Protein backbone atom coordinates (compact mmCIF):
# COMPACT_ATOMS: atom_id res chain seq x y z
CA UNK A 1 0.00 0.00 0.00
CA UNK A 2 1.38 3.42 -0.87
CA UNK A 3 2.11 5.90 1.88
CA UNK A 4 0.06 9.08 1.41
CA UNK A 5 2.21 11.90 0.09
CA UNK A 6 0.79 14.34 2.70
CA UNK A 7 1.47 13.77 6.42
CA UNK A 8 -1.71 12.59 8.06
CA UNK A 9 -3.05 14.70 10.93
CA UNK A 10 -2.42 13.32 14.39
CA UNK A 11 -5.28 13.36 16.81
CA UNK A 12 -5.13 12.34 20.43
CA UNK A 13 -8.32 10.44 21.27
CA UNK A 14 -8.47 11.69 24.86
CA UNK A 15 -11.82 10.10 25.53
CA UNK A 16 -10.58 6.71 24.43
CA UNK A 17 -7.29 6.76 26.36
CA UNK A 18 -6.86 3.60 28.34
CA UNK A 19 -3.94 3.72 30.72
CA UNK A 20 -3.07 1.57 33.71
CA UNK A 21 -3.95 3.13 37.07
CA UNK A 22 -0.35 3.90 38.10
CA UNK A 23 0.02 5.84 34.85
CA UNK A 24 -2.96 8.03 35.78
CA UNK A 25 -1.50 8.63 39.25
CA UNK A 26 1.76 9.65 37.63
CA UNK A 27 0.10 11.98 35.11
CA UNK A 28 -1.95 13.64 37.85
CA UNK A 29 1.13 13.84 40.08
CA UNK A 30 2.83 15.97 37.46
CA UNK A 31 -0.28 18.00 36.64
CA UNK A 32 -1.05 18.72 40.31
CA UNK A 33 2.56 19.77 40.83
CA UNK A 34 2.41 22.33 38.05
CA UNK A 35 -0.96 23.57 39.33
CA UNK A 36 0.44 24.04 42.83
CA UNK A 37 3.30 26.16 41.51
CA UNK A 38 0.75 28.37 39.72
CA UNK A 39 -1.17 28.77 42.99
CA UNK A 40 1.91 29.90 44.94
CA UNK A 41 2.05 33.60 43.92
CA UNK A 42 -1.67 34.28 44.57
CA UNK A 43 -1.38 32.40 47.88
CA UNK A 44 1.53 34.59 49.00
CA UNK A 45 -0.40 37.66 47.86
CA UNK A 46 -3.38 36.60 49.98
CA UNK A 47 -1.09 35.95 52.96
CA UNK A 48 0.54 39.35 52.67
CA UNK A 49 -2.79 41.09 52.30
CA UNK A 50 -4.33 39.24 55.23
CA UNK A 51 -1.58 40.46 57.55
CA UNK A 52 -1.69 44.07 56.40
CA UNK A 53 -4.59 45.27 58.53
CA UNK A 54 -8.16 44.47 59.61
CA UNK A 55 -9.77 46.00 56.47
CA UNK A 56 -7.38 44.13 54.17
CA UNK A 57 -8.04 40.93 56.15
CA UNK A 58 -11.81 41.39 55.78
CA UNK A 59 -11.34 41.94 52.05
CA UNK A 60 -9.35 38.71 51.71
CA UNK A 61 -12.11 36.81 53.54
CA UNK A 62 -14.67 38.39 51.22
CA UNK A 63 -12.65 37.46 48.14
CA UNK A 64 -12.32 33.86 49.27
CA UNK A 65 -16.10 33.74 49.61
CA UNK A 66 -16.57 34.30 45.87
CA UNK A 67 -17.65 31.12 44.02
CA UNK A 68 -14.69 31.36 41.63
CA UNK A 69 -12.27 31.61 44.56
CA UNK A 70 -13.91 28.68 46.32
CA UNK A 71 -13.57 26.61 43.16
CA UNK A 72 -9.91 27.55 42.87
CA UNK A 73 -9.42 26.63 46.51
CA UNK A 74 -11.06 23.24 45.89
CA UNK A 75 -8.73 22.58 42.95
CA UNK A 76 -5.74 23.66 45.05
CA UNK A 77 -6.70 21.41 47.96
CA UNK A 78 -7.21 18.43 45.64
CA UNK A 79 -3.90 19.17 43.92
CA UNK A 80 -2.08 19.31 47.26
CA UNK A 81 -3.71 16.12 48.52
CA UNK A 82 -3.09 14.12 45.37
CA UNK A 83 0.45 15.39 44.95
CA UNK A 84 1.35 14.63 48.58
CA UNK A 85 -0.28 11.17 48.53
CA UNK A 86 1.28 10.25 45.19
CA UNK A 87 4.57 11.60 46.55
CA UNK A 88 4.38 9.41 49.66
CA UNK A 89 3.66 6.43 47.39
CA UNK A 90 6.71 7.43 45.34
CA UNK A 91 8.90 7.56 48.46
CA UNK A 92 7.79 4.04 49.41
CA UNK A 93 8.64 2.86 45.90
CA UNK A 94 12.06 4.50 46.31
CA UNK A 95 12.55 2.25 49.33
CA UNK A 96 11.54 -0.71 47.14
CA UNK A 97 8.30 -1.17 49.08
CA UNK A 98 5.24 -2.13 47.10
CA UNK A 99 6.99 -2.41 43.74
CA UNK A 100 5.21 -5.55 42.57
CA UNK A 101 2.63 -4.87 39.87
CA UNK A 102 -0.30 -5.87 42.06
CA UNK A 103 0.90 -3.77 45.00
CA UNK A 104 1.64 -0.80 42.74
CA UNK A 105 -1.86 -0.93 41.27
CA UNK A 106 -3.39 -1.19 44.76
CA UNK A 107 -1.44 1.79 46.08
CA UNK A 108 -2.27 3.74 42.92
CA UNK A 109 -5.99 3.10 43.52
CA UNK A 110 -5.59 4.13 47.17
CA UNK A 111 -3.96 7.42 46.17
CA UNK A 112 -6.72 8.22 43.68
CA UNK A 113 -9.50 7.32 46.12
CA UNK A 114 -8.01 9.24 49.07
CA UNK A 115 -7.43 12.28 46.85
CA UNK A 116 -11.02 12.11 45.63
CA UNK A 117 -12.23 11.76 49.24
CA UNK A 118 -10.31 14.86 50.31
CA UNK A 119 -11.78 16.73 47.35
CA UNK A 120 -15.28 15.55 48.23
CA UNK A 121 -15.00 16.64 51.87
CA UNK A 122 -13.53 19.98 50.84
CA UNK A 123 -16.28 20.53 48.28
CA UNK A 124 -18.86 19.80 50.94
CA UNK A 125 -17.22 22.27 53.34
CA UNK A 126 -16.91 24.96 50.68
CA UNK A 127 -20.20 24.67 48.85
CA UNK A 128 -22.71 22.99 51.13
Amino acid sequence: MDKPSRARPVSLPLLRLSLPLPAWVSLLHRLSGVLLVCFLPPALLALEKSLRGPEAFAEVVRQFDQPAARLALLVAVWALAHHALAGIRHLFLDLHLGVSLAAARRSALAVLLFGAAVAAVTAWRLFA
Partner: protein
Amino acid sequence: MKRAVTGSHSGTGWWLMQRFSAVVLLFAGLLLWFVWLTEPAPDYATWRALFRPQAMRLVLWLWVASLCLHAWVGLRDVLMDYVKPIALRLVLDLLVTLMLLAATLWTAAILWGGHG
Protein backbone atom coordinates in the same frame (compact mmCIF):
# COMPACT_ATOMS: atom_id res chain seq x y z
CA MET B 1 18.62 -0.27 32.01
CA LYS B 2 22.33 0.26 32.48
CA ARG B 3 23.18 3.84 33.19
CA ALA B 4 26.48 5.15 34.46
CA VAL B 5 25.97 6.76 37.85
CA THR B 6 29.63 7.33 38.40
CA GLY B 7 31.31 10.57 37.60
CA SER B 8 29.79 13.96 38.05
CA HIS B 9 26.30 15.06 37.00
CA SER B 10 24.63 11.73 37.72
CA GLY B 11 21.50 13.54 38.91
CA THR B 12 21.82 12.30 42.48
CA GLY B 13 21.99 15.84 43.85
CA TRP B 14 18.68 16.75 42.22
CA TRP B 15 17.12 13.48 43.38
CA LEU B 16 18.23 14.14 46.97
CA MET B 17 17.03 17.74 46.89
CA GLN B 18 13.62 16.61 45.67
CA ARG B 19 13.23 13.81 48.22
CA PHE B 20 14.66 15.78 51.17
CA SER B 21 12.48 18.82 50.49
CA ALA B 22 9.49 16.48 50.09
CA VAL B 23 10.02 14.99 53.56
CA VAL B 24 10.41 18.48 55.08
CA LEU B 25 7.22 19.59 53.29
CA LEU B 26 5.29 16.60 54.62
CA PHE B 27 6.32 16.94 58.27
CA ALA B 28 6.36 20.74 58.51
CA GLY B 29 3.15 20.81 56.51
CA LEU B 30 1.44 18.53 59.01
CA LEU B 31 2.68 20.74 61.84
CA LEU B 32 1.40 23.90 60.18
CA TRP B 33 -1.94 22.23 59.44
CA PHE B 34 -2.34 21.30 63.11
CA VAL B 35 -1.57 24.89 64.11
CA TRP B 36 -4.21 26.12 61.66
CA LEU B 37 -6.70 23.57 63.05
CA THR B 38 -6.50 25.28 66.46
CA GLU B 39 -8.09 28.40 64.89
CA PRO B 40 -9.78 27.38 61.62
CA ALA B 41 -11.85 30.56 61.27
CA PRO B 42 -9.79 33.31 62.88
CA ASP B 43 -10.57 36.98 63.10
CA TYR B 44 -7.83 39.44 62.25
CA ALA B 45 -6.37 39.62 65.77
CA THR B 46 -6.26 35.84 66.19
CA TRP B 47 -4.76 35.48 62.72
CA ARG B 48 -1.99 37.97 63.47
CA ALA B 49 -1.33 36.27 66.82
CA LEU B 50 -0.67 32.97 65.02
CA PHE B 51 2.32 34.56 63.29
CA ARG B 52 3.82 36.29 66.33
CA PRO B 53 6.05 33.43 67.62
CA GLN B 54 9.40 33.31 65.83
CA ALA B 55 9.18 29.52 65.75
CA MET B 56 5.98 29.72 63.72
CA ARG B 57 7.47 32.22 61.27
CA LEU B 58 10.58 30.08 60.90
CA VAL B 59 8.65 26.87 60.26
CA LEU B 60 6.42 28.59 57.71
CA TRP B 61 9.39 30.17 55.93
CA LEU B 62 11.27 26.84 55.89
CA TRP B 63 8.15 25.25 54.44
CA VAL B 64 7.95 27.80 51.61
CA ALA B 65 11.71 27.60 50.99
CA SER B 66 11.49 23.80 50.78
CA LEU B 67 8.51 24.19 48.48
CA CYS B 68 10.55 26.40 46.16
CA LEU B 69 13.45 23.93 46.10
CA HIS B 70 11.03 21.07 45.50
CA ALA B 71 9.23 22.94 42.72
CA TRP B 72 12.59 23.93 41.22
CA VAL B 73 13.51 20.28 40.72
CA GLY B 74 10.03 19.34 39.56
CA LEU B 75 9.69 22.11 36.99
CA ARG B 76 13.19 21.36 35.72
CA ASP B 77 11.99 17.82 34.99
CA VAL B 78 8.81 19.08 33.31
CA LEU B 79 10.77 21.51 31.12
CA MET B 80 13.28 18.83 30.21
CA ASP B 81 10.46 16.55 29.09
CA TYR B 82 8.40 18.99 27.08
CA VAL B 83 10.61 21.87 25.92
CA LYS B 84 13.12 20.45 23.48
CA PRO B 85 14.68 23.63 22.01
CA ILE B 86 17.61 24.20 24.34
CA ALA B 87 17.67 28.00 24.26
CA LEU B 88 13.95 28.25 25.07
CA ARG B 89 14.26 25.67 27.85
CA LEU B 90 17.19 27.46 29.49
CA VAL B 91 15.32 30.78 29.38
CA LEU B 92 12.29 29.15 31.01
CA ASP B 93 14.56 27.45 33.57
CA LEU B 94 15.99 30.86 34.42
CA LEU B 95 12.54 32.44 34.74
CA VAL B 96 11.41 29.60 37.00
CA THR B 97 14.52 30.00 39.17
CA LEU B 98 13.99 33.74 39.49
CA MET B 99 10.30 33.30 40.29
CA LEU B 100 10.95 30.75 43.03
CA LEU B 101 13.81 32.81 44.46
CA ALA B 102 11.53 35.85 44.52
CA ALA B 103 8.80 33.84 46.26
CA THR B 104 11.24 32.75 48.98
CA LEU B 105 12.49 36.29 49.56
CA TRP B 106 8.98 37.74 49.44
CA THR B 107 7.83 35.26 52.11
CA ALA B 108 10.67 36.43 54.38
CA ALA B 109 9.59 40.02 53.78
CA ILE B 110 5.97 39.14 54.62
CA LEU B 111 6.90 37.33 57.81
CA TRP B 112 9.60 39.64 59.13
CA GLY B 113 9.14 42.87 57.22
CA GLY B 114 7.91 45.08 60.01
CA HIS B 115 4.49 43.61 60.82
CA GLY B 116 5.64 42.91 64.39
